[in-house]
């Protein structure tokens, strides 16, 4: 197996950081902390590079008059204005907060509100698209949890509502069990992926 220099660097630094966690040596801990800080700095720079790339892509669309370049123009204008305002006044200044509170928040919350209508429509057509037992179970569960989260037209049903109601029972037992399984699976997968990267089997950094 050929080992490139990038793999050597990744394995070396990964091993040092891992050793710093398992070996209680102050110097290793210090090295570990330094490497973690370096990683945070690099990720911050990567965020800046992403911003620059975003600007360049939309700039190219505007200059080459590609399809829907008007949206790119609006993005570039908002981009520049926000950078200028936040850079001049500060990210938590009144003007910056005004942009955030009256532009960004309403836009994103509106998109989330549309999701409500879409999910409702999908739930109504779910039975028509796929008529089987699992569809009915899924739909029934969703209704129970939904109804049990709030009074039904102002009326609480003891069977559904309350700490001992059906909704609480579903949320705390089967849901949690499934979540636990997901967490365990994610944890095991994370460990395996980390070991593969440390051993050089997977090299995501080589492209």
């Amino acid at each position, binding site marked *: 197996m050929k080992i490139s220099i990038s793999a050597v660097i990744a394995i070396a630094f990964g091993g040092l950081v891992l050793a710093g966690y398992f070996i209680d040596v102050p110097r290793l801990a210090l090295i570990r*902390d330094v490497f*973690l*800080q370096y*990683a*945070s*700095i690099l*990720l*911050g720079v990567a*965020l800046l590079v992403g911003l620059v790339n975003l600007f360049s892509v939309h700039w190219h669309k505007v200059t080459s008059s590609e399809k829907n370049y008007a949206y790119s123009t609006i993005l570039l204008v908002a981009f520049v204005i926000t950078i200028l305002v936040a850079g001049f006044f*500060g*990210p*938590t200044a009144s003007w*910056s*907060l005004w942009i*955030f*509170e009256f532009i*960004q*928040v309403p836009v*994103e*919350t509106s*998109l*989330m509100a549309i999701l*409500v*209508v*879409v999910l*409702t*429509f999908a*739930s*109504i*057509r*779910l*039975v*028509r698209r796929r*008529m089987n037992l699992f569809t009915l179970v899924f*739909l029934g569960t*969703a*209704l129970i949890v*939904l*109804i049990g*989260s*709030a*009074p*039904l*037209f*102002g009326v*609480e049903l003891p069977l559904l*509502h*309350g*700490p001992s109601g059906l909704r*609480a029972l579903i*949320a*705390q037992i089967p*849901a*949690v069990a*499934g*979540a*636990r399984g*997901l*967490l365990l699976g*994610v944890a095991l997968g994370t460990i395996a992926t980390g070991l593969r990267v440390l051993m050089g089997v997977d090299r995501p950094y080589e492209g």
Partner: protein
Amino acid sequence: MSELRCPMCGKSNPSEREICQYCQARLKPLVISQHPDEPAPKKDSLDFLGQSPPSSQDEAADEGLPDWLASLRKADEAAVPSEPAEDLPDWLEMEKQPIPEETRQDEAAVPDWLTSFRASGADVEEGLSDEREEYSPSISQRESEEEGLPDWLEGMSPSTSAPLEPGESGEEALAQIESEEPEWLDRLGEAAETPPTQPVDRNKPDWQDTFDELEVQPEAEKPLTPGTEQAFSFESQLSELEEEYSKQQLAADTEGDEEGAATLPAWLSAVGATEAEVEQESIPDWLAGALEPQAEQPGVLPEQPFTAIDAQAEEHISDEFVISPSLGVVAAEIAKGELEEEPFQDTETETAAPDWLEELASNQPAAVVLPEEKAPITEADIPDWLAGYDETPALDLEEQLPYGPGSEEPGLLLDWLEEEAEPAPEEAEAAVIDAAVTSFVAPFALDEEGQELLESEPPEWMAQAAGLEGSLESVAPPTEIGDEEGLTKAELPDWLEAMRPLESAALTTPIQEESERQVEGVGPLAGLRSVLPSEFDVGTLKTPAAYTVKLQVSENQKAHINLIDGLVKSEGEAGETPARKILGPQRLLLIGISVILVLALLWPVLTARQTTSLPGYSDEILETSSQINNLPGNVPVLLAVDYEPGMTGELEATVSAVLDHLMLKGAYLTLISTLPSGPAQAERLVNSVSDRGEHDYQSPGQYTNLGYIPGSITGIRAFSERPPLLTPYALDGSPVWEEGPLAGFQSLADFGMVVVLTENPNTARAWVEQAGPLLGETPLVMVVSAQIEPVVRPYFESESQQVSGIVAGLPGGAAYEQMLGRFGVARKYWDTYSLGVSLIALLIVLGAVINVADYLLSNRKSSVGETKR
């Protein structure tokens, strides 16, 4: 199947063909009728030798038989007793056979030279026995070949009751021909009977002896009138030319008269006149030598009569006979159109040489340069139609003058053959040899000058006698046939044109070029022909062609490749479905849902109704509340705001009560975020809660905003280990780790509480897994969206309890407000939230019921329909 051998290229052709399929030469000579009453001969037969009308008995067999040959045979039959000679070649045997009377009678005036030709052939047969032995293999081979002679030569065979077919023996052909010979051939035979005046030379061809006979015994010149059919035959023309030339030659010899040259006809004088204009390359060597002044050619003996071949000339004559020089010369000249109206019209005097001959004699040397050495001509080079003539050695063809001025011999004048030719230069030798070869295979090749002469109008006497228009054009070389008027060029198909051999193209090239190319000039083989080059021509060397190894793909192939590639790639891809533009039921359902929800949600807002009871609080909410209650006053609390602006509505309603509780406790809020929009989000949250709860929280006194932590999980870990290293300053630039409530803090354990606000389960898990082990006794409270409550609850319900409290969704916030007793955003949203949830549930139920009913009904209908069928 019997085949014909082409006289031009020498290749075999089917007998029924009239034109060679390789070089487009005529296989069967045109036949020109001698008598005006007789039907015109076929145009497709080359009748350059003249052809007497066939007898009634042999008419079918002698269609292609030239008259002079027929008459020759008959004359021989009558004059010379046929003596079987095993060693005699066919053409000699034919001469010896007597010519039938009827043939003689039918013939017109026979040139004496032809008559003597036959006779001389009979007399010299013995003398040429040695030569025949040399040629016997070739003779026997030719005799045995069934590939027939051309028609005009095949006619030379003795005519029998059966038609003459190609492949017959020469003797039979000769007999047939002799039976049809005209009277002038009889005279030719008579002349041949006379003993030669000079000793027989074994190295000279027989026909030369015949010319000698004719010169020795001049015969009455047959008047040549345009009315005679014989005049239009090629052979008759040759005989006339030779006769006249011999007369003029003799006259020139005795008188030295150059005036005789002035009597030459214009057409023949044009030959001399134009010879100066003709370049050497365009004129064959044998003819060029004949046209040049005698003094210019080395080794040329001046004013040598044709009549005899002296011993010196005999030595230089090639052993291989190529072609009758006189016949060839005259044939070529006629083919070139040199013949004009003038020749053969001079019938005033039988003995006086025509003007054209005199002119010719004055301008042309009478002698011929005989090469000293000549390359032997192989059997393959000799076509079959001349096989019969291949009894005599090759002659020097450089000077093949018809007749010299002043020649007394009516027949063939061979004075130029009698002279002892001096050694010719190599070029001349090569030219002669090549001329012998190429002229043998291409007797009708013409250069530009010859072409012009050919295109000129034929002599009047020829046109009147033949009664044919354009008959001379038949004499033209095969490539020119059809270009003249009256004849249409055969249209060959493309595939046949493609089969045209290279030899046909070579025929059009000047003979001299080929001869020059073939002669080796350097090395030990200098002077020889057709040898491999001893030295490589550097100029011809060149670097080998570079062949690319790149795959050559044409545009069409590329198009096909791209098409197939597109088809393969499109496999498995879902095809695009056209978008529906019509407002369908789905869109109506969406619009209806939106309207119902909007009206339902606006009602409580518009009416400010808050009648719906708040939910009860659970254990995790109680724990959270207890943890906050246990905080000492003014203790720093880390508030991690890690939710998106889109989730502001839910989480702000959820965390408002908790944050209000912290503000009531006077906790120093330390804001941090792992999202780029987190700092602004956190700032807005604190301000809103502070304003709503009238806490008047200000920075940096009551809270500080540390800003954004890059790196997600790595950043959380790094911040958890050493917060001052990762965020040394706040967003306002103040050194919060050196002064203020956060002074001296080194880790998260120094904080009083850590509250994480997020809607992302991974972020919640990262804070729990990365920051939890470093918190120590510091409680970790999760204020999350209702959607991730199941993900966070295990951490709360675990035995280690990594999460101290959970407040999930609007119900949790509403319950916390109810527990706290301070209502805020959650209370405001609760009624609307309750109504909306109820409506959504109702819509889902209704839709499901309808769909199920529809499904059942449709299945029932389909089942009923199937049963009915």
